Every structure is written in structure tokens, then in C-alpha cells.
């Protein structure tokens, strides 16, 4: 049995705007084990981002329980939340959320500077390794505005994995990218997952969800489907196919 890393029970989030209550999540129960690769799907407004933010400890639930790695988050102090975000979780946003005017290297280095546990000796070296492994070794000193969307998202992924988290969360990581670049990003996620990192991501596209191992579907703040994927796609192979296609197209022209 793999170790349970995420467990929610009755997790609810209600936004109150003036008189109106928006029930973004209603009593969600989810269990996710170490090493899983979960795609969360659902219509716009179904509560995907809300769920991700709660799992990522970026926000707190209105009610319900959330255990991360067996620890009850409701008992956490703000500093413990910060430590969890720093140590256990790497978050990848749809909008990248990199620091502007800051080089890729410095962006990736940032989580290491807030690390209080390891006493990391050479954060720059570690950040370089993280960038190299997602194939951006030659773009370290570029600032975000000098990078393409796909490159920026890969910097964000490098930043998410530099602290060696158990869990990487990605909210529509490819939402702003073209399909070719998206597949590239998914192949990075698949690689990381193979190394044992748990991955949870949100995507709108069924095709991309098939790169995961399991799909959870939300509707109106509730889990409506939760199933394992049988015919899982390999992003590397898809990428190869895409390349062949474009070569063929090139010949046709």
C-alpha cells in the first residue's frame, strides 16, 4: 500500500460576497496516495481552482478536514503553513507567477532562500540543476519577459521542484500554451511522476488529462467522477508523433 498523502473529508469552501453565498466546494472527500498522477477536470466554475488552492495550503477551507501526509492542517500555525508550502508542495500556476525583472535562476532559487530546515549550502547550484533538468540550462539569466510562455512555465516548474517536494500542484499549467508546448510540459510532469513525485493538476482538455493516471471530475463543487485511466498516453511518444506530423507537413508545403 502506498502512503496516503492527501485526505480530505467534508471539505467545503463558501465565498460570501455581500448577501450572496457562493458554494465553491461542497463536502469534497478525496484520497490521494504517494506517487499518483491526478488530473482534475470539470466545467468552468466547478471549483477546481478552489480545491487546488486548499490542497496547496494557499487558502483555508470554510469547513471540513484536510490532512496532508497525515497531518491535520486545521491545527497548523501560519508558520507551519509556510513550511508546508516551502517543503512539501510545489505549486505551478496558470499565469506562471514568476517575479518580474528577476532572472530565471533567481526565481528558481527563491524557495531555497526561505528554506529553514535543510541549511542548503549552495542554493545557486541547486537552482541551476533544477533548470537544467527541465531543459532551460541556457536560459538561466533571462528574465521572464525574455522567455516564451512555455519557457516561463518550465521556470515555474523548476521553481516548484527545486525544494524536492512530495507533491506538485498545477492549476491549468498549460492553459496559456499551444498544444505542442503543452505536451512538452506534460512530458516533464510524467518524468517527475516517474521519480515518485505526486502530481495533481487541473486541465480542461480531455486529451491532456489522459497523460495522468487518474481523473477526478468536479461539478458544482462536488466530485462527480473519480476513475483510473486505462489507456494512458505517454507524452514523449505524443511529442514524437507531433514532430513527425510537422515534418510531413513541411514536406507537403
Amino acid at each position: 500500500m502506498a502512503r496516503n498523502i492527501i485526505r480530505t473529508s467534508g471539505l467545503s469552501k463558501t465565498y460570501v460576497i455581500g448577501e450572496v453565498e457562493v458554494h465553491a466546494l461542497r463536502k469534497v472527500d478525496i484520497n490521494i496516495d504517494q506517487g499518483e498522477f491526478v488530473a482534475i477536470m470539470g466545467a468552468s466554475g466547478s471549483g477546481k481552482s478552489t480545491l487546488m488552492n486548499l490542497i496547496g495550503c494557499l487558502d483555508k477551507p470554510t469547513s471540513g478536514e484536510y490532512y496532508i501526509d497525515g497531518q491535520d492542517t486545521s491545527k497548523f500555525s501560519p508558520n507551519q503553513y509556510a513550511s508546508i508550502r516551502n517543503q512539501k508542495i510545489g505549486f505551478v500556476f496558470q499565469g506562471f507567477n514568476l517575479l518580474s525583472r528577476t532572472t530565471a535562476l533567481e526565481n528558481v532559487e527563491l524557495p531555497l532562500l526561505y528554506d529553514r530546515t535543510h541549511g542548503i549550502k549552495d542554493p545557486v547550484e541547486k537552482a541551476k540543476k533544477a533548470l537544467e533538468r527541465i531543459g532551460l540550462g541556457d536560459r538561466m539569466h533571462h528574465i521572464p519577459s525574455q522567455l516564451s510562455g512555455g519557457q516561463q512555465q518550465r521556470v515555474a516548474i523548476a521553481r516548484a521542484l527545486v525544494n524536492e517536494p512530495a507533491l506538485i500542484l498545477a492549476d491549468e499549467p498549460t492553459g496559456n500554451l499551444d498544444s505542442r508546448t503543452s505536451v512538452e510540459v506534460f512530458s516533464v510532469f510524467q518524468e517527475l511522476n516517474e521519480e515518485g513525485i505526486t502530481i495533481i493538476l487541473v486541465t480542461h482538455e480531455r486529451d491532456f488529462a489522459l497523460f495522468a493516471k487518474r481523473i477526478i471530475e468536479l461539478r458544482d463543487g462536488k466530485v462527480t467522477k473519480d476513475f483510473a485511466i486505462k489507456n494512458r498516453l505517454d507524452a514523449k511518444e505524443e511529442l514524437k508523433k507531433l514532430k513527425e506530423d510537422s515534418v510531413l507537413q513541411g514536406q507537403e508545403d
Partner: protein
Amino acid sequence: MQVKNIIKVALRSIMKSRMRSLLTALGIIIGVAAVVVMVAIGDGAQKQVEDQISSLGSNLIVITPGASASGGVNRGMGSFNRFTFDDVQKIKDEATLITGVTPIVRSGGQVIGGIGNWFTQIQGVSPDYLEIRSWKLKSGEFFTERDVLARSKVCVLGSEVAKNLFPDDDPIGQQIRIRNVPFKIIGVLSEKGQTSVGTSNDDIILAPSRTVHERLSGGRFISSIQVSAVSPAQIPKAKEELRKIMREAHKLTQGEEDDFTIQDQADLATAATETSKILTILLGSVAGVSLIVGGIGIMNIMLVSVTERTREIGIRLSIGARSSDILIQFLTEAVVLSLAGGILGVSLSFGVSYLLNNYTSQAANIQPEIIFLAFSFAGAIGIFFGFYPARKASKLNPIDALRYE
């Protein structure tokens, strides 16, 4: 280790937003420099006035023509030039509480001699003048009562004049021509320094009063009479005595107002302080305004960047920064900028007051208290507006900070 990292982050952030940093610091620089310089000018002016008055000699009493205007003080040339040598003689003969009396006959013009020519003022005075003004000779001698009565064409040079006309040789015994009248130099005065308007006290030629009166000023009246009292304590009595003598000399009947004004140093000081107080208030208000403008500038820049910075805080929180990390970072940024701005502002004010002191007639006297005051005020503004929004943002959920608009 941890704090070192956060300070590194803060310094990086300052370097990343050079424009914002510069503008923030600029507000502080201008605010601090303006306040320090303005107050230094006010203070310098006041000092100059005080210096000038004390350089007059502490027992000095000055009689000027014309009634003193009510409330204000009549300074220098009045509308009535009615003093005569008889007035001076009468004071000399009758006053008991004085040690000396001199008429001041003003003239001026081109002086030729030595290595060239020089434009300066010439004062006709009596031999008592040096004692009254507590001035000394550097070399040679002063003229005597006999010289005055004989209208001798002798003179004593101020050190500035001596330096300019006779840079290399001894002027004593040499001839100069003042407005074409030949004078023999018999002495040189010691240096006295600057007056309140920045001109040199030493740019002057003294000559016997009657010589100047008849040869140079064309028989005009005496512009003032200066007297020294026997002691500061006797000044009020001496003034009373002088008043009686002058009224008699001018044949004023009872009920008629004085047609002259008698002032001692205290009177002069009050008048001068009155003027420089107004100056200080004026400059102080200008300085206050520039400090406020500087403060608003800082505020503006900080508030404008709040959205961007709140998002930045959201990013930092989302990757594991504690709110204390954020606070230390922003506090460091604000302190570094305020400190740098404050130091530059103070340096700027030192530069400006150096220029004022050396290249203009305006003296500036920088006061440490004002440096401290301006520094802490500007610093407080910088730190408050750099820190307060950050404090608020650091208390948000990361996701709320990221969504901030």
C-alpha cells in the same frame, strides 16, 4: 543564515526596481536637503546679524538723524542729515558717561595708488574711532586731533584695501589718490572679517573727519555719530545724557519730538532679530512644504506599486515565505532606501551650504538637530509607507495576495 538570505532578497529587490527605488529615495533626498538648507540659511542669517552687532563693540551707542518711526527702528541714513561738527563737539565737551565720540562722514570712490586702483568706501572719523569700534592697527599709526583740525590729507587703510593695492610692499608712507585728492598712508588696520551682507569690514579707508567732509563729501552733513559708553551698565544713563545734549544742541523746545534716534546694541539687535525671525519663519514654511511634498512623493510611489508588490508578496508566500520574512524584507528595503536618501540629502545640504558660504554672501549654518529632525521625519515617512502596505499584504492568504487588484 535566514535573515542574511532575506536581506539579500531585499537588496536584490531594490536593485531590480531602480526607478522606484530612485524616486523613493529622491523624495527623501529633496525633503531632507530642503529642510536642512532652509533652516541653515535662516540660522546663518541670524548668526551674521549677531556677529555684526557684536563686532560693533559692546559699549557702542549710535546716534542717527531723524525721529525713530513708531514701532520700527530707523536704521542708517534718515531723511534729515542735520548733524554738524558742533553737535559732536558739544557731546565731547559735555557728556560724562562716554569714553569717546566720532562723527561718521561717508564717502566713497576710486582710489589710485600702489599697483592699480580700487573702488572702496571712505569714512571720515575722529581719533576716538578705533577705541569706539574696538579695532586695532596692524601697523603704522592713527591720525590725531591735530590732523582733524588741520584737515591733513592722511589716511589709514583697511587690510583688504592694503592687500589689493599694495600686495607686495609696505603701504605706510606711500601716497594714494582718493578721487584725485592725494593722501598719505600712515597706518593699516587689523583684519575684522565679514559684515552681515557679506562685504568685508576691511574694505574701507579711514581719514580725518573734517578732511573727508570738506575734500571728498562736498560739505555734506555727518551721517551718524558713534559714541562709546564707559561701561555696558552705564548705557541707559549715557543715552539719557546724550539725548539731553542733542536736544539742547538742536534747540528743541519741550513738547517737540527728538529729531534724532539714539540706539545701543540691544536696540539694533532687536531690530535685526525681528527681521531675521521673519526670514526664519518664511524659510521654515518653505522647508516644511518641501518636506511634505517629498513625503507625498514617497507615499505616491509606494501606493502605486502596492498592487505589483502585493502580487509579489503573494508569490513569495505561495512558495513558503513566512509573513515575518516578508516584513523583514520590506522593512530592510524601506530602511535602506530611507537611509540612503537621508544620507544623500544631508550630503546635498552640506554641498549647498558650502557653495552658499563660499560663493555667495548668504551664510548657511547647518544645525545637527535639524539634520536629525529631517532625517527621522523623512525616514519615518519612507519606512511607514514602504512597510505598512507590506504588513497588510503579508497577513493575507497567499491566494488573496495573488489575486489583489
